[in-house]
């Protein structure tokens, strides 16, 4: 399978140079690399530029409401856990209007990947400040410097209980593809924050800024990138035993504070020891994986209801003496 197998003919109307292209491309690459059949994949998005992603990918694509990608995706996954479910949002979409769902997805640990296109602005509505824009920063459509401080998506994901937490950079395609592959393969709720410059509205955190083009004099005339890979510095995010959880989580939180001249990308935290929501359901409903809600037959050949209410009706029946 090739990435092109997951492309559609829909005209792509993102701005030239948009960081979204890198995310779209890497999703297609990852799906091809994992040899996933298109009809077994559901890609769910919210509202905004990021949300259009699903129209450009040839899998089931569910473009939902502002902030609500996660609950839609959760419904799809719970009703048919055999599907691969990927969810994409913007930072306003996922951390602003959808912040409540972000937190609760962590509590569940459903087996799916959630990708946030993180550019600090509301692009489609013309550049208002979004939840990851830092305090005092004034991107070009703001009348005044940002009056709110930024939320740290990595911290929030860890606090909420995500069991795989990573950050990618949309212009490092190979690295991002590997992260998406890992995120899909992780058994549990995987959260991937993707730094994705908005060339039209965020004139501060630009591709050149991430790439350190402004720091050439510090580096003998060559760009000195702000983004670096944690794995290159032997950062080990993996929880191998429950006793390591505290140390690994603390280490991830500490790492996620780095910003400015050094911005880490890669995996902050990975804990495969937590039971998924689906496994917890199976504890109560033993046949859940074989007979999830979407795969149960409910009617006979002529529409005869197959649900047998005898047991329930008996419990509600009074037989007078």
């Amino acid at each position, binding site marked *: 399978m090739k990435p092109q197998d997951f492309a559609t003919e829909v005209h792509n109307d993102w701005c030239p140079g948009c960081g979204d292209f890198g995310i779209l491309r890497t999703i297609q690459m990852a799906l091809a690399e994992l040899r996933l059949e298109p009809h077994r994949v559901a890609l769910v998005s919210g509202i905004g530029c990021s949300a259009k992603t699903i129209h450009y990918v040839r899998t089931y694509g*569910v473009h939902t*409401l502002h902030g609500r990608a996660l609950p*839609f995706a959760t*419904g799809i996954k719970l009703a048919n856990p055999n*599907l691969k479910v990927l969810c994409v949002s913007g930072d306003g979409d996922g951390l602003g209007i959808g912040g409540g769902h972000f937190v609760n997805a962590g509590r569940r640990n459903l087996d799916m990947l959630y990708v946030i296109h993180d550019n600090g602005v509301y692009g489609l509505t013309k550049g208002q400040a979004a939840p990851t824009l830092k305090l005092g920063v004034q991107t070009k459509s703001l009348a005044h410097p940002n009056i709110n401080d930024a939320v740290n998506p990595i911290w929030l994901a860890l606090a909420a209980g995500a069991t795989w937490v990573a950050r990618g950079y949309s212009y490092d395609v190979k690295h991002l593809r590997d992260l998406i592959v890992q995120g899909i393969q992780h058994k549990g709720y995987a959260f991937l924050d993707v730094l994705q410059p908005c060339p039209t509205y965020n004139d501060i955190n630009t591709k050149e800024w991430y790439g350190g083009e402004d720091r050439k004099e510090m580096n003998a005339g060559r760009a000195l990138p702000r983004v670096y890979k944690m794995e290159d510095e032997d950062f080990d995010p993996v929880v191998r035993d429950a006793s390591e959880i505290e140390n690994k989580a603390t280490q991830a939180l500490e790492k996620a504070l780095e910003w400015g001249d050094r911005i880490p990308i890669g995996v902050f935290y990975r804990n495969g020891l937590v039971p998924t929501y689906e496994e917890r359901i199976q504890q109560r409903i033993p046949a859940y994986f074989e007979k999830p809600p979407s795969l149960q037959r409910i009617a006979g050949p002529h529409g005869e209801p197959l*649900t047998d209410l005898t047991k329930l009706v008996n419990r509600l*029946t009074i037989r007078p*003496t």
Partner: protein
Amino acid sequence: MPPGSRKVNDLSWMIGGPQGSGVDSAANAFARGCAHGGLNIFGKREYYSNIMGEHSYFAVRATTGTVRSHVDVVNILASFDAETVFRHARDVSDDGAIIYDPSLGSTKVADVPTIDRRASSDLRAYLNGRGLGETVNDMLTAAKQRGIALVPVPFHDLLEQVAEEFKVDQLSKIARMINMLAVGASFGALRFDFGMLEKALEDVFRAKAAVVRMNAAGARRAYDLAATLEPDFRYRLEHVPGQPPKLFLSGSQATALGKLYGGLRFQTYYPITPASDESEYLEANEILDVDARSLPPETSDSTFAKEKGASILVVQTEDEIAAVTMATGAALTGARSATATSGPGFSLMMEGIGWASINEVPVVITLYQRAGPSTGMPTRHEQGDLRFALHAGHGDSPRILLASGDFEECIRDGFRSLNFAERYQMPVIHLVDKALANNSGTIPLPRLSDLRIDRGNLVPDGHAYSEESPYKRFDFDKGPMSPRAVIGTENTIFWNTGDEHDELGHITEDVVLRNKMMEKRDAKLQLAGREIPDDEKINYFGPRDAETVIVSWGSTKGAILDALDRLWAAKQKIGFLQIRLISPFPTSAVAGVLEKAETRVDVEMNYSAQLAGIVREQTGIAMTHTIVKYNGRPMSSSELFDALTAVHLGKAEPRTVLTHGA
């Protein structure tokens, strides 16, 4: 008392007490005892938005005839606290009885902090007007002056006797039993077969044999005491042998049963009164049995094996936005999906309902109405969301809206709401309400053998879609209900979007496609209007040539029919049109009935007579009278009888507001 003046098997009983003291279980035991004795039951539950301490009460009617509503009058008031006497003694009939705790006699109105200022000044005015003081004893004196029998039950002494008999070291361990003592005393005054109460206690406490024995022993002592104190009480309950089995259930349970039978396999909810009960009942019964009898014999063995493992997945979500969107996501995979909520939660669902409508997703929203606006009165009744549910959301978004009037309709509408959703590929809002949800009663075992599951135009396994002939989710040529594939079916990739979309489901702002999609969606609603038979849209009761016709919807049905039984017995020609399908509105069926009526009476549990407005909008026919109620307490058949009589005699104003309740 001469036997001829006895009132046998036609009783209105009430028990009250602080929340958390077992009022509900006592009423449950009383009602079940009556039902075991062959009587029909209707129970009305009233409670505050409070965990412990506020006043709750439960009214039960028991009769050999049909009973579908409560009445204002109470024949036996069973109490074990002061507040119940204060709040309800005035509702007791002159020939009735009050069971009370004599040790509370000197408690004053002012000593009861849960009686608020308005109710307290009203009570004091009542007592002072009779030259009485402000204590429970004064209240009882006023009752006695009317002829009411007073039945003092020294609950504390009886509990001590039980403690001694069962060697219980601390009285506090069995103090809860006081509620069943009040039930025992009631049965004693009524001379009802004590064995029925023992059966009821076994139902209520299930496997806990020791608890049953102790409660029965206490109840027996109270029974004997009351029977001795009031040997000549006018009201009696008598065992009616040979009665067929009956369902004893609440509207929440009835709705849940209908949805399960209809193949519901995924339900979401966020905790809210009074909707949560349904979801909790479903969750407690999540493992389902399968009836393989209808499967073809040649396949039944293997198929049946495959059908084992049925279940419903109930998910408690983080909010109602997640509840409706998660259910919608599940519906996209082919699972029959629903959510249940009440007003404030429904308010949060607007955007999700619009999404399901534009994407033609079958999802059911069961809306348990309660008194609004805003938080309103969370545990009190209203039918105030009719117009809201009809128009919920921005833009023109087709949805089916139906309303149930009684327990059996809850079952059938729960079932057919899932059918409508899949057949017409749109959200269905099923209106129920607090009264239906929390009231309980006996009904004959419903016959459901006519019900069939209709999954609509669903893409089957072995379909012919391929790369050469690709699947189009919103195919105009196969509309208005285009073949619906579910996520996970080979060669049926589709897209959804809340934006206007083309046949594949991709965003479009094209002027021609926009019109065609709007028209396609509306065509489904119009088709539903033509396909659904009239007798599923409306019910009509009474003479066809009635000059006075009542129009109503929802749970007022019970009170209206009970009031009509009395009016019909007096040879009054009055008809009743119950509208069950609100969208698409059954315009011609409704107009057909109303055109002939000279007096048209709208009856509704809301302030603005919402249905009357809708009927006028749809048919051009205005009501001559409205009877409304909005104090949070359901209409009784007695107050409705009075109001309808006044209308029929030409003595009513165009608008009557009913006000009974505590």
